[in-house]
Protein backbone atom coordinates (compact mmCIF):
# COMPACT_ATOMS: atom_id res chain seq x y z
CA UNK A 1 0.00 0.00 0.00
CA UNK A 2 1.39 3.39 -0.89
CA UNK A 3 0.26 6.57 0.73
CA UNK A 4 1.53 9.26 -1.53
CA UNK A 5 -0.46 8.73 -4.69
CA UNK A 6 -1.80 11.73 -6.44
CA UNK A 7 -5.40 12.09 -7.40
CA UNK A 8 -4.59 11.24 -10.97
CA UNK A 9 -3.84 7.67 -10.02
CA UNK A 10 -6.40 7.20 -7.32
CA UNK A 11 -9.19 6.52 -9.72
CA UNK A 12 -7.48 3.30 -10.70
CA UNK A 13 -8.14 1.93 -7.25
CA UNK A 14 -11.80 2.62 -7.56
CA UNK A 15 -14.52 0.25 -8.60
CA UNK A 16 -18.00 1.59 -8.83
CA UNK A 17 -20.93 -0.67 -9.43
CA UNK A 18 -24.56 0.21 -9.62
CA UNK A 19 -26.55 -1.06 -6.69
CA UNK A 20 -29.23 -0.47 -4.20
CA UNK A 21 -28.98 2.29 -1.68
CA UNK A 22 -29.97 2.28 1.94
CA UNK A 23 -33.66 1.51 1.57
CA UNK A 24 -32.98 -1.89 0.08
CA UNK A 25 -30.39 -2.92 2.64
CA UNK A 26 -31.11 -5.60 5.22
CA UNK A 27 -30.73 -4.77 8.89
CA UNK A 28 -27.26 -5.01 10.35
CA UNK A 29 -28.10 -7.99 12.49
CA UNK A 30 -29.06 -10.07 9.48
CA UNK A 31 -25.48 -10.59 8.38
CA UNK A 32 -22.40 -11.65 10.23
CA UNK A 33 -19.49 -11.75 7.87
CA UNK A 34 -16.83 -9.67 6.23
CA UNK A 35 -17.73 -8.38 2.79
CA UNK A 36 -17.01 -10.76 -0.03
CA UNK A 37 -15.03 -9.20 -2.83
CA UNK A 38 -13.28 -6.66 -0.63
CA UNK A 39 -9.65 -6.98 -1.76
CA UNK A 40 -7.00 -7.75 0.75
CA UNK A 41 -5.16 -4.57 1.64
CA UNK A 42 -8.09 -2.24 0.94
CA UNK A 43 -10.53 -0.08 2.82
CA UNK A 44 -13.85 -1.08 1.27
CA UNK A 45 -16.63 1.50 1.43
CA UNK A 46 -20.24 0.80 0.43
CA UNK A 47 -23.30 2.89 -0.30
CA UNK A 48 -25.60 0.45 1.51
CA UNK A 49 -25.67 -1.17 4.91
CA UNK A 50 -24.06 -4.58 5.31
CA UNK A 51 -21.61 -4.02 2.49
CA UNK A 52 -24.19 -3.66 -0.24
CA UNK A 53 -24.74 -1.20 -3.05
CA UNK A 54 -22.02 0.63 -4.91
CA UNK A 55 -18.53 0.34 -3.52
CA UNK A 56 -15.05 1.84 -3.59
CA UNK A 57 -11.98 -0.24 -2.81
CA UNK A 58 -9.39 2.19 -1.50
CA UNK A 59 -5.80 0.99 -1.43
CA UNK A 60 -4.25 4.37 -0.72
CA UNK A 61 -4.99 7.52 1.12
CA UNK A 62 -7.37 9.75 -0.74
CA UNK A 63 -7.77 13.44 -0.07
CA UNK A 64 -10.90 14.03 -2.13
CA UNK A 65 -13.50 11.30 -2.46
CA UNK A 66 -15.43 13.65 -4.73
CA UNK A 67 -12.80 12.88 -7.37
CA UNK A 68 -14.28 9.42 -7.79
CA UNK A 69 -17.90 9.94 -6.86
CA UNK A 70 -17.74 8.58 -3.32
CA UNK A 71 -18.16 11.87 -1.41
CA UNK A 72 -20.84 11.45 1.30
CA UNK A 73 -21.73 7.94 0.12
CA UNK A 74 -20.59 5.70 2.94
CA UNK A 75 -23.08 3.55 4.80
CA UNK A 76 -20.79 0.65 5.70
CA UNK A 77 -17.06 0.00 5.45
CA UNK A 78 -14.39 -2.57 6.23
CA UNK A 79 -10.64 -2.38 6.91
CA UNK A 80 -9.14 -5.31 5.04
CA UNK A 81 -5.63 -3.91 5.31
CA UNK A 82 -2.68 -6.21 5.77
CA UNK A 83 -0.57 -4.12 8.09
CA UNK A 84 -1.38 -2.84 11.53
CA UNK A 85 -2.59 0.48 10.22
CA UNK A 86 -6.05 1.75 11.05
CA UNK A 87 -8.39 2.81 8.31
CA UNK A 88 -9.75 6.25 8.99
CA UNK A 89 -12.60 7.96 7.16
CA UNK A 90 -12.74 11.74 7.54
CA UNK A 91 -15.92 13.71 7.16
CA UNK A 92 -14.03 16.60 5.59
CA UNK A 93 -12.06 16.52 2.34
CA UNK A 94 -8.30 16.65 2.70
CA UNK A 95 -8.49 15.50 6.33
CA UNK A 96 -9.97 18.80 7.42
CA UNK A 97 -10.39 19.63 11.05
CA UNK A 98 -13.54 17.60 11.49
CA UNK A 99 -14.33 14.16 12.77
CA UNK A 100 -13.48 10.69 11.55
CA UNK A 101 -14.41 7.06 12.04
CA UNK A 102 -11.60 4.54 12.52
CA UNK A 103 -11.37 0.76 12.31
CA UNK A 104 -8.52 -1.55 13.30
CA UNK A 105 -7.22 -4.07 10.79
CA UNK A 106 -9.62 -6.89 10.09
CA UNK A 107 -12.65 -5.09 11.49
CA UNK A 108 -15.46 -3.10 9.96
CA UNK A 109 -18.73 -1.30 10.53
CA UNK A 110 -21.57 -3.05 8.67
CA UNK A 111 -24.03 -0.39 9.81
CA UNK A 112 -22.54 3.06 9.98
CA UNK A 113 -25.73 4.89 10.84
CA UNK A 114 -24.46 5.97 14.24
CA UNK A 115 -20.97 6.78 13.01
CA UNK A 116 -19.75 10.24 12.14
CA UNK A 117 -18.66 8.99 8.72
CA UNK A 118 -22.12 7.68 7.82
CA UNK A 119 -22.90 9.09 4.38
CA UNK A 120 -20.39 11.77 5.24
CA UNK A 121 -17.01 10.34 4.22
CA UNK A 122 -14.91 12.72 2.16
CA UNK A 123 -11.31 11.51 2.55
CA UNK A 124 -9.41 8.59 4.05
CA UNK A 125 -5.97 7.74 5.37
CA UNK A 126 -4.16 4.87 7.10
CA UNK A 127 -2.61 5.93 10.43
CA UNK A 128 -0.65 3.64 12.72
CA UNK A 129 -2.67 5.01 15.59
CA UNK A 130 -6.20 6.41 15.22
CA UNK A 131 -5.28 9.63 16.99
CA UNK A 132 -2.27 10.35 14.76
CA UNK A 133 -2.26 13.57 12.78
CA UNK A 134 -3.40 13.14 9.21
CA UNK A 135 -0.66 12.31 6.75
CA UNK A 136 -0.84 11.32 3.14
Amino acid at each position, binding site marked *: *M*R*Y*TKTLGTIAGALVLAGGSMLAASPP*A*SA*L*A*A*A*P*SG*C*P*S*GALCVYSGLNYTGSHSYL*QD*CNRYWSAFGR*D*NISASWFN*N*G*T*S*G*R*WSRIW*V*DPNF*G*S*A*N*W*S*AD*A*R*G*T*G*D*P*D*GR*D*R*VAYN*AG*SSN*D*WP*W*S*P*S*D*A*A*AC
Partner: protein
Amino acid sequence: MRSHRSLVGACLAVVIATAAGCSTPAALGPRSAPNGPTSTGPLPRALTPAEDARLLYAEDLIVHACMARSGLRFVAEPLAASSRPAAEQRYGTADIAAARAHGYGYSETPAGQRRADSTSADPNEAYQHTLSPDAQRAYETALYGTAASRPQVELPDGQGLVIATEGCVAEARKRLYGDDLRGYLISQHVTANLEGHIAQDVRDSKAYRSALGGWRTCMANRGFSFATPQEARQGGETAAHKGGRAAEIRVATADAECGWDHRLLATAVDLEQDRFADTGPELTAWIREFRSRRLAALSKARELIRAESRSRG
Protein backbone atom coordinates in the same frame (compact mmCIF):
# COMPACT_ATOMS: atom_id res chain seq x y z
CA MET B 1 -19.31 16.58 4.09
CA ARG B 2 -21.71 16.30 6.90
CA SER B 3 -21.95 18.18 10.11
CA HIS B 4 -21.39 16.80 13.59
CA ARG B 5 -22.85 13.35 14.10
CA SER B 6 -22.51 11.04 17.03
CA LEU B 7 -19.63 8.65 17.01
CA VAL B 8 -20.18 5.25 18.54
CA GLY B 9 -23.84 5.90 18.76
CA ALA B 10 -26.26 7.99 20.64
CA CYS B 11 -24.41 7.46 23.89
CA LEU B 12 -21.32 9.09 22.51
CA ALA B 13 -23.29 12.02 21.28
CA VAL B 14 -23.30 13.01 24.91
CA VAL B 15 -19.61 13.69 24.67
CA ILE B 16 -20.01 16.31 22.03
CA ALA B 17 -23.31 17.64 23.21
CA THR B 18 -22.71 17.93 26.92
CA ALA B 19 -23.15 21.65 26.76
CA ALA B 20 -26.49 21.17 25.07
CA GLY B 21 -27.81 19.26 28.01
CA CYS B 22 -27.85 15.64 26.86
CA SER B 23 -27.85 13.09 29.61
CA THR B 24 -25.76 9.96 29.51
CA PRO B 25 -28.21 7.44 31.02
CA ALA B 26 -31.03 8.37 28.67
CA ALA B 27 -28.74 8.27 25.70
CA LEU B 28 -27.41 4.85 26.61
CA GLY B 29 -30.90 3.54 27.16
CA PRO B 30 -31.94 0.03 26.24
CA ARG B 31 -29.50 -0.31 23.37
CA SER B 32 -26.53 -0.83 25.67
CA ALA B 33 -24.49 -3.92 24.85
CA PRO B 34 -25.03 -6.80 27.22
CA ASN B 35 -22.19 -8.33 29.16
CA GLY B 36 -19.98 -5.26 29.04
CA PRO B 37 -17.17 -4.78 31.54
CA THR B 38 -18.27 -3.81 35.02
CA SER B 39 -14.99 -2.65 36.54
CA THR B 40 -14.87 0.65 38.36
CA GLY B 41 -12.20 2.96 39.70
CA PRO B 42 -9.90 5.51 38.13
CA LEU B 43 -8.99 5.15 34.48
CA PRO B 44 -5.57 3.64 33.90
CA ARG B 45 -3.20 5.85 31.95
CA ALA B 46 -3.20 5.72 28.17
CA LEU B 47 -0.19 4.13 26.54
CA THR B 48 2.46 6.33 24.97
CA PRO B 49 2.95 6.13 21.20
CA ALA B 50 6.18 4.19 21.83
CA GLU B 51 4.30 1.64 23.92
CA ASP B 52 1.61 1.35 21.25
CA ALA B 53 4.34 0.78 18.68
CA ARG B 54 5.87 -1.92 20.89
CA LEU B 55 2.56 -3.78 21.09
CA LEU B 56 2.06 -3.54 17.36
CA TYR B 57 5.55 -4.92 16.76
CA ALA B 58 4.84 -7.79 19.16
CA GLU B 59 1.54 -8.48 17.34
CA ASP B 60 3.40 -8.58 14.05
CA LEU B 61 6.08 -10.90 15.43
CA ILE B 62 3.35 -13.38 16.33
CA VAL B 63 1.67 -12.89 12.95
CA HIS B 64 5.05 -13.44 11.27
CA ALA B 65 5.56 -16.78 13.05
CA CYS B 66 1.96 -17.85 12.40
CA MET B 67 2.13 -17.02 8.68
CA ALA B 68 5.47 -18.80 8.39
CA ARG B 69 3.81 -21.99 9.61
CA SER B 70 1.68 -21.81 6.44
CA GLY B 71 4.69 -21.04 4.30
CA LEU B 72 3.64 -17.39 3.89
CA ARG B 73 5.78 -14.32 4.25
CA PHE B 74 4.93 -11.55 6.68
CA VAL B 75 7.50 -8.95 7.64
CA ALA B 76 7.52 -7.67 11.22
CA GLU B 77 9.46 -4.46 11.74
CA PRO B 78 9.73 -2.20 14.77
CA LEU B 79 8.20 1.24 14.49
CA ALA B 80 9.94 4.30 15.79
CA ALA B 81 7.59 6.34 17.93
CA SER B 82 7.79 8.96 20.61
CA SER B 83 7.97 7.98 24.26
CA ARG B 84 6.13 11.19 25.07
CA PRO B 85 2.41 11.03 25.93
CA ALA B 86 0.07 10.73 22.96
CA ALA B 87 -1.75 13.86 24.17
CA GLU B 88 1.27 15.91 23.07
CA GLN B 89 0.69 14.85 19.48
CA ARG B 90 -2.96 15.81 19.71
CA TYR B 91 -2.66 19.14 21.48
CA GLY B 92 0.94 20.34 21.67
CA THR B 93 4.00 19.80 23.76
CA ALA B 94 5.04 21.54 26.97
CA ASP B 95 8.17 19.55 27.86
CA ILE B 96 10.81 22.21 27.33
CA ALA B 97 13.69 20.09 28.61
CA ALA B 98 12.86 17.22 26.24
CA ALA B 99 12.46 19.61 23.30
CA ARG B 100 15.84 21.24 24.00
CA ALA B 101 17.56 17.86 24.30
CA HIS B 102 15.78 15.79 21.63
CA GLY B 103 13.54 18.03 19.55
CA TYR B 104 10.56 15.89 18.56
CA GLY B 105 12.81 12.84 18.31
CA TYR B 106 12.76 12.64 14.52
CA SER B 107 16.54 13.00 14.20
CA GLU B 108 17.05 10.20 16.68
CA THR B 109 15.09 7.47 14.90
CA PRO B 110 17.27 4.37 15.12
CA ALA B 111 18.49 2.89 11.88
CA GLY B 112 16.30 0.02 10.70
CA GLN B 113 13.11 1.34 12.25
CA ARG B 114 10.20 2.60 10.23
CA ARG B 115 8.80 5.93 11.19
CA ALA B 116 5.40 5.69 12.81
CA ASP B 117 3.70 7.94 10.32
CA SER B 118 1.24 7.33 7.55
CA THR B 119 3.61 7.86 4.66
CA SER B 120 6.17 5.12 5.14
CA ALA B 121 5.89 2.12 2.83
CA ASP B 122 4.59 -1.17 4.15
CA PRO B 123 6.49 -4.24 2.96
CA ASN B 124 3.55 -6.58 3.46
CA GLU B 125 1.25 -4.53 1.28
CA ALA B 126 3.92 -4.36 -1.38
CA TYR B 127 4.51 -8.12 -1.17
CA GLN B 128 0.82 -8.86 -1.42
CA HIS B 129 0.51 -6.89 -4.62
CA THR B 130 3.01 -9.26 -6.24
CA LEU B 131 0.74 -12.27 -5.61
CA SER B 132 -1.84 -13.75 -7.97
CA PRO B 133 -5.52 -13.17 -7.08
CA ASP B 134 -5.81 -16.72 -5.70
CA ALA B 135 -2.66 -16.34 -3.65
CA GLN B 136 -3.91 -13.01 -2.31
CA ARG B 137 -7.10 -14.68 -1.13
CA ALA B 138 -5.10 -17.44 0.56
CA TYR B 139 -2.93 -14.81 2.20
CA GLU B 140 -5.99 -12.93 3.49
CA THR B 141 -7.53 -16.15 4.81
CA ALA B 142 -4.33 -16.96 6.68
CA LEU B 143 -4.37 -13.48 8.21
CA TYR B 144 -8.04 -13.13 9.11
CA GLY B 145 -9.82 -16.42 8.42
CA THR B 146 -12.43 -16.73 5.70
CA ALA B 147 -14.89 -13.89 5.13
CA ALA B 148 -17.73 -16.11 6.29
CA SER B 149 -15.95 -16.89 9.54
CA ARG B 150 -15.87 -13.30 10.75
CA PRO B 151 -18.71 -12.71 13.21
CA GLN B 152 -20.52 -9.51 13.97
CA VAL B 153 -20.49 -8.42 17.60
CA GLU B 154 -22.61 -5.79 19.28
CA LEU B 155 -21.16 -2.43 20.28
CA PRO B 156 -22.44 -0.44 23.28
CA ASP B 157 -24.71 1.60 21.01
CA GLY B 158 -26.32 -1.54 19.60
CA GLN B 159 -24.57 -1.32 16.26
CA GLY B 160 -22.48 -4.14 14.88
CA LEU B 161 -18.76 -4.56 14.45
CA VAL B 162 -17.38 -7.27 12.19
CA ILE B 163 -14.29 -8.86 13.69
CA ALA B 164 -11.82 -11.61 12.78
CA THR B 165 -11.72 -14.46 15.27
CA GLU B 166 -9.62 -16.82 13.19
CA GLY B 167 -6.30 -16.47 11.44
CA CYS B 168 -2.95 -15.10 12.47
CA VAL B 169 -4.06 -11.61 13.53
CA ALA B 170 -6.63 -13.12 15.90
CA GLU B 171 -3.99 -15.46 17.28
CA ALA B 172 -1.69 -12.51 17.97
CA ARG B 173 -4.42 -10.51 19.66
CA LYS B 174 -5.44 -13.42 21.87
CA ARG B 175 -1.88 -14.09 22.97
CA LEU B 176 -1.29 -10.48 23.90
CA TYR B 177 -4.65 -9.25 25.15
CA GLY B 178 -6.42 -12.40 26.32
CA ASP B 179 -8.79 -15.01 24.93
CA ASP B 180 -11.86 -12.74 25.06
CA LEU B 181 -11.25 -11.31 21.62
CA ARG B 182 -14.77 -9.97 21.34
CA GLY B 183 -14.36 -7.90 24.50
CA TYR B 184 -10.97 -6.63 23.47
CA LEU B 185 -12.03 -5.54 19.99
CA ILE B 186 -15.16 -3.82 21.25
CA SER B 187 -13.11 -1.96 23.84
CA GLN B 188 -10.58 -1.01 21.17
CA HIS B 189 -13.20 0.29 18.75
CA VAL B 190 -15.06 2.25 21.40
CA THR B 191 -11.93 3.77 22.90
CA ALA B 192 -10.26 4.72 19.63
CA ASN B 193 -13.28 6.47 18.19
CA LEU B 194 -14.22 8.10 21.46
CA GLU B 195 -10.72 9.46 22.00
CA GLY B 196 -10.70 10.94 18.54
CA HIS B 197 -14.06 12.48 19.04
CA ILE B 198 -13.09 13.96 22.39
CA ALA B 199 -9.87 15.32 20.90
CA GLN B 200 -11.82 17.14 18.23
CA ASP B 201 -14.21 18.47 20.83
CA VAL B 202 -11.29 19.73 22.91
CA ARG B 203 -9.67 21.42 19.92
CA ASP B 204 -12.96 23.12 19.11
CA SER B 205 -13.44 24.41 22.65
CA LYS B 206 -13.21 28.10 23.42
CA ALA B 207 -10.56 27.59 26.12
CA TYR B 208 -8.26 25.61 23.84
CA ARG B 209 -8.72 27.97 20.91
CA SER B 210 -7.85 30.87 23.16
CA ALA B 211 -4.67 29.16 24.33
CA LEU B 212 -3.89 28.26 20.72
CA GLY B 213 -4.16 31.92 19.71
CA GLY B 214 -1.54 32.82 22.30
CA TRP B 215 0.70 29.97 21.16
CA ARG B 216 0.39 31.07 17.53
CA THR B 217 1.37 34.66 18.32
CA CYS B 218 4.27 33.44 20.45
CA MET B 219 5.50 31.20 17.61
CA ALA B 220 5.16 34.01 15.08
CA ASN B 221 7.29 36.24 17.31
CA ARG B 222 9.99 33.58 17.05
CA GLY B 223 9.75 33.40 13.29
CA PHE B 224 7.52 30.35 12.91
CA SER B 225 4.16 30.70 11.17
CA PHE B 226 2.47 27.44 12.11
CA ALA B 227 -1.29 27.37 12.62
CA THR B 228 -1.30 24.41 15.00
CA PRO B 229 1.13 22.32 17.06
CA GLN B 230 0.55 19.49 14.58
CA GLU B 231 1.86 21.73 11.82
CA ALA B 232 4.82 22.67 14.02
CA ARG B 233 5.58 18.99 14.58
CA GLN B 234 5.46 18.34 10.83
CA GLY B 235 7.66 21.39 10.34
CA GLY B 236 10.09 19.94 12.85
CA GLU B 237 10.18 16.69 10.94
CA THR B 238 10.86 18.52 7.70
CA ALA B 239 13.55 20.57 9.43
CA ALA B 240 15.12 17.37 10.72
CA HIS B 241 15.37 15.98 7.21
CA LYS B 242 16.60 19.18 5.63
CA GLY B 243 18.60 20.93 8.29
CA GLY B 244 19.40 18.19 10.76
CA ARG B 245 18.98 17.88 14.48
CA ALA B 246 19.71 21.50 15.40
CA ALA B 247 16.99 22.79 13.08
CA GLU B 248 14.48 20.34 14.52
CA ILE B 249 15.37 21.34 18.07
CA ARG B 250 14.84 25.03 17.26
CA VAL B 251 11.25 24.37 16.16
CA ALA B 252 10.51 21.96 19.01
CA THR B 253 11.93 24.29 21.65
CA ALA B 254 9.89 27.25 20.44
CA ASP B 255 6.82 25.01 20.30
CA ALA B 256 7.32 23.73 23.84
CA GLU B 257 8.14 27.14 25.34
CA CYS B 258 5.14 28.79 23.71
CA GLY B 259 2.99 25.83 24.73
CA TRP B 260 4.14 26.13 28.31
CA ASP B 261 3.65 29.91 28.42
CA HIS B 262 0.07 29.62 27.15
CA ARG B 263 -0.87 26.38 28.96
CA LEU B 264 -1.83 24.73 25.70
CA LEU B 265 -1.36 21.12 26.77
CA ALA B 266 -2.51 21.68 30.34
CA THR B 267 -5.72 23.30 29.13
CA ALA B 268 -6.37 20.44 26.71
CA VAL B 269 -5.67 17.71 29.25
CA ASP B 270 -8.03 19.33 31.76
CA LEU B 271 -10.77 19.55 29.12
CA GLU B 272 -10.12 15.98 27.99
CA GLN B 273 -10.49 14.65 31.52
CA ASP B 274 -13.79 16.50 31.87
CA ARG B 275 -15.04 15.01 28.61
CA PHE B 276 -14.05 11.49 29.63
CA ALA B 277 -15.87 11.98 32.93
CA ASP B 278 -18.97 12.96 30.95
CA THR B 279 -19.09 9.72 28.95
CA GLY B 280 -20.82 7.80 31.72
CA PRO B 281 -19.97 4.55 33.50
CA GLU B 282 -20.55 2.12 30.64
CA LEU B 283 -18.22 3.75 28.16
CA THR B 284 -15.72 4.48 30.90
CA ALA B 285 -15.72 0.77 31.72
CA TRP B 286 -14.90 -0.08 28.12
CA ILE B 287 -12.06 2.44 28.07
CA ARG B 288 -10.76 1.02 31.35
CA GLU B 289 -10.95 -2.48 29.85
CA PHE B 290 -8.98 -1.42 26.80
CA ARG B 291 -6.24 0.42 28.63
CA SER B 292 -5.90 -2.31 31.27
CA ARG B 293 -5.47 -5.03 28.67
CA ARG B 294 -2.93 -2.99 26.74
CA LEU B 295 -0.94 -2.15 29.85
CA ALA B 296 -0.96 -5.80 30.92
CA ALA B 297 0.26 -6.86 27.48
CA LEU B 298 3.37 -4.68 27.61
CA SER B 299 5.44 -7.18 29.58
CA LYS B 300 4.48 -10.00 27.18
CA ALA B 301 5.43 -7.78 24.26
CA ARG B 302 8.75 -6.96 25.87
CA GLU B 303 9.52 -10.67 26.26
CA LEU B 304 8.60 -11.42 22.66
CA ILE B 305 10.74 -8.60 21.35
CA ARG B 306 13.64 -9.61 23.59
CA ALA B 307 13.41 -13.19 22.34
CA GLU B 308 13.36 -11.94 18.76
CA SER B 309 16.45 -9.82 19.39
CA ARG B 310 18.26 -12.79 20.95
CA SER B 311 17.37 -15.03 18.01
CA ARG B 312 18.89 -12.51 15.64
CA GLY B 313 22.08 -12.60 17.71
